[in-house]
Protein backbone atom coordinates (compact mmCIF):
# COMPACT_ATOMS: atom_id res chain seq x y z
CA UNK A 1 0.00 0.00 0.00
CA UNK A 2 1.31 3.40 -0.97
CA UNK A 3 1.24 5.74 2.02
CA UNK A 4 -0.97 8.72 1.29
CA UNK A 5 0.63 12.10 0.78
CA UNK A 6 -0.38 15.59 -0.19
CA UNK A 7 1.65 17.98 -2.28
CA UNK A 8 3.26 20.49 0.09
CA UNK A 9 1.76 23.93 0.70
CA UNK A 10 4.05 26.31 -1.14
CA UNK A 11 4.84 28.84 1.55
CA UNK A 12 8.08 30.35 2.76
CA UNK A 13 8.61 27.76 5.48
CA UNK A 14 8.28 24.93 2.93
CA UNK A 15 10.83 26.50 0.57
CA UNK A 16 13.21 27.07 3.45
CA UNK A 17 12.86 23.45 4.60
CA UNK A 18 13.37 22.24 1.03
CA UNK A 19 16.47 24.39 0.63
CA UNK A 20 17.94 23.50 4.01
CA UNK A 21 17.46 19.74 3.76
CA UNK A 22 18.74 19.56 0.17
CA UNK A 23 21.72 21.84 0.93
CA UNK A 24 22.80 19.75 3.92
CA UNK A 25 22.53 16.48 2.00
CA UNK A 26 24.50 17.90 -0.92
CA UNK A 27 27.14 19.39 1.39
CA UNK A 28 27.90 16.20 3.26
CA UNK A 29 27.50 13.50 0.64
CA UNK A 30 30.71 12.28 -0.96
CA UNK A 31 30.16 10.12 -4.01
CA UNK A 32 27.68 11.80 -6.31
CA UNK A 33 24.17 11.01 -7.47
CA UNK A 34 23.88 7.41 -6.48
CA UNK A 35 24.52 8.27 -2.85
CA UNK A 36 22.59 11.55 -2.80
CA UNK A 37 19.36 10.21 -4.28
CA UNK A 38 18.53 7.69 -1.51
CA UNK A 39 19.14 10.45 1.05
CA UNK A 40 16.87 12.90 -0.79
CA UNK A 41 14.23 10.21 -0.97
CA UNK A 42 14.44 9.60 2.77
CA UNK A 43 13.91 13.30 3.46
CA UNK A 44 11.25 14.13 0.87
CA UNK A 45 9.26 10.88 1.01
CA UNK A 46 9.73 9.31 4.43
CA UNK A 47 10.30 12.30 6.65
CA UNK A 48 8.31 15.15 5.08
CA UNK A 49 5.85 13.20 2.88
CA UNK A 50 6.05 15.78 0.09
CA UNK A 51 5.93 13.22 -2.73
CA UNK A 52 5.06 9.53 -3.14
CA UNK A 53 7.56 6.70 -3.19
CA UNK A 54 6.60 5.39 -6.66
CA UNK A 55 6.66 8.82 -8.20
CA UNK A 56 10.11 9.45 -6.75
CA UNK A 57 11.41 6.19 -8.21
CA UNK A 58 10.03 7.05 -11.65
CA UNK A 59 11.50 10.53 -11.56
CA UNK A 60 14.87 9.21 -10.40
CA UNK A 61 14.85 6.77 -13.34
CA UNK A 62 14.37 9.76 -15.66
CA UNK A 63 17.08 11.70 -13.80
CA UNK A 64 19.54 8.88 -14.40
CA UNK A 65 18.76 8.66 -18.08
CA UNK A 66 18.74 12.31 -19.04
CA UNK A 67 21.95 14.21 -19.77
CA UNK A 68 23.73 16.09 -17.00
CA UNK A 69 24.61 15.44 -13.40
CA UNK A 70 22.25 12.89 -11.86
CA UNK A 71 21.96 14.73 -8.55
CA UNK A 72 21.09 18.02 -10.27
CA UNK A 73 18.61 16.25 -12.56
CA UNK A 74 16.92 14.62 -9.57
CA UNK A 75 16.69 17.99 -7.81
CA UNK A 76 15.08 19.58 -10.88
CA UNK A 77 12.54 16.78 -11.42
CA UNK A 78 11.59 16.30 -7.76
CA UNK A 79 11.57 20.04 -7.10
CA UNK A 80 9.28 20.58 -10.10
CA UNK A 81 6.89 17.86 -9.01
CA UNK A 82 6.71 19.14 -5.44
CA UNK A 83 6.49 22.86 -6.11
CA UNK A 84 6.72 23.87 -9.78
CA UNK A 85 9.37 26.18 -11.19
CA UNK A 86 10.17 27.87 -7.88
CA UNK A 87 10.62 24.46 -6.24
CA UNK A 88 12.95 23.49 -9.08
CA UNK A 89 15.09 26.57 -8.64
CA UNK A 90 15.26 26.17 -4.86
CA UNK A 91 16.21 22.48 -5.03
CA UNK A 92 18.74 23.01 -7.82
CA UNK A 93 20.44 25.92 -6.03
CA UNK A 94 20.64 23.90 -2.83
CA UNK A 95 22.24 21.02 -4.75
CA UNK A 96 24.77 23.13 -6.64
CA UNK A 97 25.85 25.66 -4.00
CA UNK A 98 27.74 23.29 -1.64
CA UNK A 99 30.13 21.90 -4.29
CA UNK A 100 30.47 25.39 -5.80
CA UNK A 101 31.57 26.82 -2.45
CA UNK A 102 33.77 23.86 -1.48
CA UNK A 103 35.58 23.70 -4.80
CA UNK A 104 36.13 27.47 -4.97
CA UNK A 105 37.90 27.25 -1.60
CA UNK A 106 39.85 24.15 -2.63
CA UNK A 107 40.98 25.61 -5.94
CA UNK A 108 42.28 28.65 -4.03
CA UNK A 109 44.37 26.40 -1.79
CA UNK A 110 45.34 24.23 -4.75
CA UNK A 111 46.95 27.22 -6.46
CA UNK A 112 48.66 28.09 -3.20
CA UNK A 113 50.10 24.65 -2.51
CA UNK A 114 50.40 22.87 -5.87
CA UNK A 115 53.94 24.17 -6.43
CA UNK A 116 55.19 22.71 -3.13
CA UNK A 117 57.41 19.66 -3.91
CA UNK A 118 55.97 17.51 -1.10
CA UNK A 119 52.39 18.27 -2.12
CA UNK A 120 53.41 17.40 -5.68
CA UNK A 121 54.63 13.97 -4.53
CA UNK A 122 51.33 13.35 -2.74
CA UNK A 123 49.30 14.51 -5.73
CA UNK A 124 51.39 12.34 -8.06
CA UNK A 125 50.67 9.31 -5.87
CA UNK A 126 46.99 10.19 -5.79
CA UNK A 127 46.92 10.53 -9.58
CA UNK A 128 48.00 6.89 -9.75
CA UNK A 129 45.25 5.97 -7.27
CA UNK A 130 42.69 7.92 -9.32
CA UNK A 131 43.91 6.14 -12.47
CA UNK A 132 43.28 2.83 -10.71
CA UNK A 133 39.72 3.99 -9.95
CA UNK A 134 38.92 4.82 -13.53
CA UNK A 135 40.52 1.57 -14.79
CA UNK A 136 38.27 -0.28 -12.37
CA UNK A 137 35.16 1.53 -13.60
CA UNK A 138 36.15 0.92 -17.23
CA UNK A 139 36.70 -2.81 -16.63
CA UNK A 140 33.31 -3.17 -14.89
CA UNK A 141 31.51 -1.27 -17.66
CA UNK A 142 33.12 -3.26 -20.48
CA UNK A 143 32.44 -6.56 -18.67
CA UNK A 144 28.79 -5.60 -18.23
CA UNK A 145 28.40 -4.91 -21.96
CA UNK A 146 30.23 -8.13 -22.93
CA UNK A 147 28.00 -10.23 -20.67
CA UNK A 148 24.98 -9.17 -22.72
CA UNK A 149 26.47 -11.08 -25.67
CA UNK A 150 24.96 -8.67 -28.19
CA UNK A 151 26.81 -7.58 -31.33
CA UNK A 152 25.58 -4.01 -31.71
CA UNK A 153 26.78 -2.61 -28.35
CA UNK A 154 30.22 -4.15 -28.90
CA UNK A 155 30.49 -2.64 -32.38
CA UNK A 156 29.53 0.74 -30.92
CA UNK A 157 32.19 0.42 -28.22
CA UNK A 158 34.92 -0.50 -30.73
CA UNK A 159 33.87 2.08 -33.31
CA UNK A 160 33.48 4.90 -30.81
CA UNK A 161 36.75 4.11 -29.07
CA UNK A 162 38.71 4.04 -32.34
CA UNK A 163 37.09 7.22 -33.66
CA UNK A 164 37.69 9.05 -30.39
CA UNK A 165 41.13 7.80 -29.42
CA UNK A 166 42.90 7.27 -32.73
CA UNK A 167 41.12 9.67 -35.07
CA UNK A 168 40.20 12.49 -32.65
CA UNK A 169 36.60 12.66 -33.87
CA UNK A 170 34.56 15.20 -31.87
CA UNK A 171 32.99 13.49 -28.85
CA UNK A 172 29.66 15.30 -29.14
CA UNK A 173 29.37 14.18 -32.76
CA UNK A 174 30.04 10.58 -31.68
CA UNK A 175 27.37 10.81 -28.99
CA UNK A 176 24.86 12.16 -31.52
CA UNK A 177 25.64 9.35 -33.99
CA UNK A 178 25.41 6.63 -31.33
CA UNK A 179 22.18 8.10 -29.97
CA UNK A 180 20.64 7.98 -33.45
CA UNK A 181 21.86 4.39 -33.96
CA UNK A 182 20.21 3.48 -30.66
CA UNK A 183 16.98 5.22 -31.60
CA UNK A 184 16.80 3.30 -34.89
CA UNK A 185 18.09 -0.17 -33.95
CA UNK A 186 18.19 -0.55 -30.19
CA UNK A 187 14.69 0.13 -28.90
CA UNK A 188 14.19 -3.56 -28.15
CA UNK A 189 14.12 -4.31 -24.40
CA UNK A 190 17.05 -6.75 -24.70
CA UNK A 191 19.34 -3.74 -25.11
CA UNK A 192 18.18 -2.10 -21.87
Amino acid at each position, binding site marked *: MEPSYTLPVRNRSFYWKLFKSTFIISAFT*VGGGFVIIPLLKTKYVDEYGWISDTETLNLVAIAQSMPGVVAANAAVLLGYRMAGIVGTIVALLATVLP*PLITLSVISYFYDLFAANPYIQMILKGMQCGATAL*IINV*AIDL*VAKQLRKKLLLP*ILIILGTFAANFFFDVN*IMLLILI*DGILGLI*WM*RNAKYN
Partner: protein
Amino acid sequence: MIDVLLFWEFAKIGLFCVGGGYASMPLIQASVVDTYHWLSMSEFVDIFTISQMTPGPIGINAATFAGTKVDGICGAVAATIGFVAPSFILGIILARLFFKYGDIGPIRGILNGLRPAVVALICGAGISFILLALWNSETLPSDWSGIDLSGALILGLSVIAIRRKISVISVLTGSGILGLILGLLHG
Protein backbone atom coordinates in the same frame (compact mmCIF):
# COMPACT_ATOMS: atom_id res chain seq x y z
CA MET B 1 33.39 37.60 -22.48
CA ILE B 2 35.39 34.66 -21.19
CA ASP B 3 32.52 33.95 -18.76
CA VAL B 4 30.12 33.61 -21.69
CA LEU B 5 32.48 31.12 -23.31
CA LEU B 6 32.75 29.17 -20.04
CA PHE B 7 28.98 29.14 -19.70
CA TRP B 8 28.53 27.97 -23.29
CA GLU B 9 31.22 25.26 -23.17
CA PHE B 10 29.90 23.79 -19.93
CA ALA B 11 26.31 23.99 -21.18
CA LYS B 12 27.36 21.86 -24.16
CA ILE B 13 29.11 19.42 -21.83
CA GLY B 14 26.02 19.27 -19.60
CA LEU B 15 23.80 18.61 -22.61
CA PHE B 16 25.95 15.82 -24.01
CA CYS B 17 27.01 13.98 -20.87
CA VAL B 18 24.69 11.04 -20.39
CA GLY B 19 25.24 8.30 -17.85
CA GLY B 20 26.42 9.83 -14.60
CA GLY B 21 29.59 11.43 -13.29
CA TYR B 22 32.23 9.41 -15.07
CA ALA B 23 30.56 10.06 -18.42
CA SER B 24 31.19 13.79 -18.10
CA MET B 25 34.95 13.35 -17.81
CA PRO B 26 35.88 12.64 -21.44
CA LEU B 27 33.75 15.62 -22.50
CA ILE B 28 35.29 17.94 -19.95
CA GLN B 29 38.75 16.74 -20.91
CA ALA B 30 38.10 17.32 -24.62
CA SER B 31 36.93 20.89 -24.04
CA VAL B 32 38.81 22.15 -20.99
CA VAL B 33 42.15 20.38 -21.54
CA ASP B 34 42.45 19.62 -25.26
CA THR B 35 40.62 22.51 -26.93
CA TYR B 36 40.96 25.53 -24.63
CA HIS B 37 43.92 24.55 -22.43
CA TRP B 38 42.20 26.05 -19.38
CA LEU B 39 43.68 23.18 -17.36
CA SER B 40 46.62 20.86 -17.91
CA MET B 41 45.95 17.11 -18.01
CA SER B 42 47.70 16.89 -14.64
CA GLU B 43 45.39 19.50 -13.08
CA PHE B 44 42.43 17.70 -14.62
CA VAL B 45 43.41 14.40 -13.00
CA ASP B 46 43.87 16.28 -9.71
CA ILE B 47 40.28 17.59 -9.92
CA PHE B 48 39.10 14.07 -10.49
CA THR B 49 41.04 12.96 -7.40
CA ILE B 50 39.74 15.85 -5.31
CA SER B 51 36.18 15.16 -6.48
CA GLN B 52 36.40 11.62 -5.22
CA MET B 53 37.16 12.93 -1.74
CA THR B 54 34.90 15.98 -1.48
CA PRO B 55 31.12 16.29 -1.60
CA GLY B 56 29.50 17.07 -4.89
CA PRO B 57 29.27 15.53 -8.33
CA ILE B 58 32.49 15.47 -10.36
CA GLY B 59 30.95 17.47 -13.21
CA ILE B 60 30.03 20.38 -10.97
CA ASN B 61 33.38 20.17 -9.20
CA ALA B 62 35.26 20.26 -12.49
CA ALA B 63 33.14 23.18 -13.73
CA THR B 64 33.82 25.15 -10.55
CA PHE B 65 37.54 24.36 -10.57
CA ALA B 66 38.07 25.19 -14.24
CA GLY B 67 35.91 28.31 -13.93
CA THR B 68 37.88 29.54 -10.92
CA LYS B 69 41.15 28.99 -12.79
CA VAL B 70 40.00 30.98 -15.79
CA ASP B 71 38.16 33.86 -14.15
CA GLY B 72 37.92 33.52 -10.37
CA ILE B 73 34.56 33.31 -8.69
CA CYS B 74 32.68 34.76 -11.72
CA GLY B 75 34.15 32.04 -13.89
CA ALA B 76 33.17 29.38 -11.37
CA VAL B 77 29.57 30.61 -11.26
CA ALA B 78 29.34 30.94 -15.05
CA ALA B 79 30.71 27.44 -15.68
CA THR B 80 28.57 25.82 -13.00
CA ILE B 81 25.34 27.50 -14.09
CA GLY B 82 26.16 26.57 -17.67
CA PHE B 83 26.70 22.98 -16.67
CA VAL B 84 23.31 22.58 -14.97
CA ALA B 85 21.32 24.78 -17.41
CA PRO B 86 20.48 21.83 -19.73
CA SER B 87 19.35 19.78 -16.70
CA PHE B 88 17.07 22.61 -15.68
CA ILE B 89 15.42 23.05 -19.07
CA LEU B 90 15.27 19.38 -20.08
CA GLY B 91 14.19 18.35 -16.58
CA ILE B 92 11.17 20.60 -16.64
CA ILE B 93 10.22 19.47 -20.17
CA LEU B 94 10.61 15.77 -19.29
CA ALA B 95 8.76 16.15 -16.00
CA ARG B 96 5.81 17.70 -17.85
CA LEU B 97 5.86 15.01 -20.56
CA PHE B 98 6.09 12.32 -17.93
CA PHE B 99 3.12 13.60 -15.93
CA LYS B 100 1.14 13.88 -19.15
CA TYR B 101 1.99 10.56 -20.82
CA GLY B 102 3.64 8.50 -18.06
CA ASP B 103 6.20 7.15 -20.53
CA ILE B 104 9.40 8.25 -22.19
CA GLY B 105 9.57 5.41 -24.76
CA PRO B 106 11.88 6.48 -27.61
CA ILE B 107 14.35 7.92 -25.11
CA ARG B 108 15.12 4.31 -24.09
CA GLY B 109 16.43 3.50 -27.57
CA ILE B 110 18.68 6.56 -27.59
CA LEU B 111 20.01 5.58 -24.18
CA ASN B 112 20.66 2.02 -25.28
CA GLY B 113 22.87 3.40 -28.05
CA LEU B 114 24.59 5.85 -25.74
CA ARG B 115 25.49 3.43 -22.97
CA PRO B 116 28.14 1.55 -24.97
CA ALA B 117 29.37 4.86 -26.40
CA VAL B 118 29.98 6.15 -22.89
CA VAL B 119 31.84 2.93 -22.05
CA ALA B 120 34.17 3.54 -25.00
CA LEU B 121 34.75 7.19 -24.05
CA ILE B 122 35.50 6.31 -20.42
CA CYS B 123 38.04 3.73 -21.64
CA GLY B 124 39.66 6.48 -23.71
CA ALA B 125 39.82 8.78 -20.65
CA GLY B 126 41.26 5.88 -18.64
CA ILE B 127 44.10 5.49 -21.14
CA SER B 128 44.87 9.23 -20.94
CA PHE B 129 45.04 8.84 -17.16
CA ILE B 130 47.44 5.89 -17.47
CA LEU B 131 49.69 7.79 -19.91
CA LEU B 132 49.87 10.72 -17.51
CA ALA B 133 50.42 8.60 -14.40
CA LEU B 134 53.10 6.33 -15.83
CA TRP B 135 54.75 8.26 -18.68
CA ASN B 136 53.92 11.82 -17.63
CA SER B 137 52.64 12.33 -21.15
CA GLU B 138 49.36 13.49 -22.69
CA THR B 139 49.80 11.52 -25.91
CA LEU B 140 51.13 8.06 -26.73
CA PRO B 141 54.83 8.26 -25.71
CA SER B 142 57.49 7.66 -28.36
CA ASP B 143 59.68 5.90 -25.80
CA TRP B 144 57.72 3.36 -23.76
CA SER B 145 60.77 2.45 -21.63
CA GLY B 146 60.55 5.76 -19.78
CA ILE B 147 57.91 4.30 -17.45
CA ASP B 148 57.70 5.70 -13.91
CA LEU B 149 58.26 2.61 -11.75
CA SER B 150 57.01 4.04 -8.45
CA GLY B 151 53.89 5.24 -10.28
CA ALA B 152 53.40 1.75 -11.70
CA LEU B 153 53.77 0.25 -8.21
CA ILE B 154 51.18 2.62 -6.70
CA LEU B 155 48.82 2.07 -9.62
CA GLY B 156 49.11 -1.74 -9.36
CA LEU B 157 48.54 -1.75 -5.60
CA SER B 158 45.58 0.64 -5.95
CA VAL B 159 43.92 -1.56 -8.58
CA ILE B 160 44.26 -4.58 -6.27
CA ALA B 161 42.92 -2.57 -3.32
CA ILE B 162 39.88 -1.36 -5.28
CA ARG B 163 39.09 -4.81 -6.62
CA ARG B 164 39.12 -5.94 -2.97
CA LYS B 165 36.44 -3.35 -2.22
CA ILE B 166 38.61 -1.07 -0.13
CA SER B 167 36.96 2.36 0.06
CA VAL B 168 37.85 5.03 -2.48
CA ILE B 169 38.96 7.51 0.17
CA SER B 170 41.31 4.95 1.77
CA VAL B 171 42.81 4.06 -1.62
CA LEU B 172 43.41 7.71 -2.53
CA THR B 173 44.82 8.57 0.91
CA GLY B 174 47.07 5.49 0.76
CA SER B 175 48.32 6.27 -2.74
CA GLY B 176 49.05 9.87 -1.68
CA ILE B 177 51.11 8.70 1.30
CA LEU B 178 52.91 6.12 -0.84
CA GLY B 179 53.62 8.83 -3.43
CA LEU B 180 55.21 10.98 -0.73
CA ILE B 181 57.32 8.11 0.68
CA LEU B 182 58.55 6.91 -2.73
CA GLY B 183 59.17 10.52 -3.81
CA LEU B 184 61.30 11.19 -0.73
CA LEU B 185 63.27 7.93 -1.21
CA HIS B 186 63.98 8.90 -4.82
CA GLY B 187 64.85 12.50 -4.23
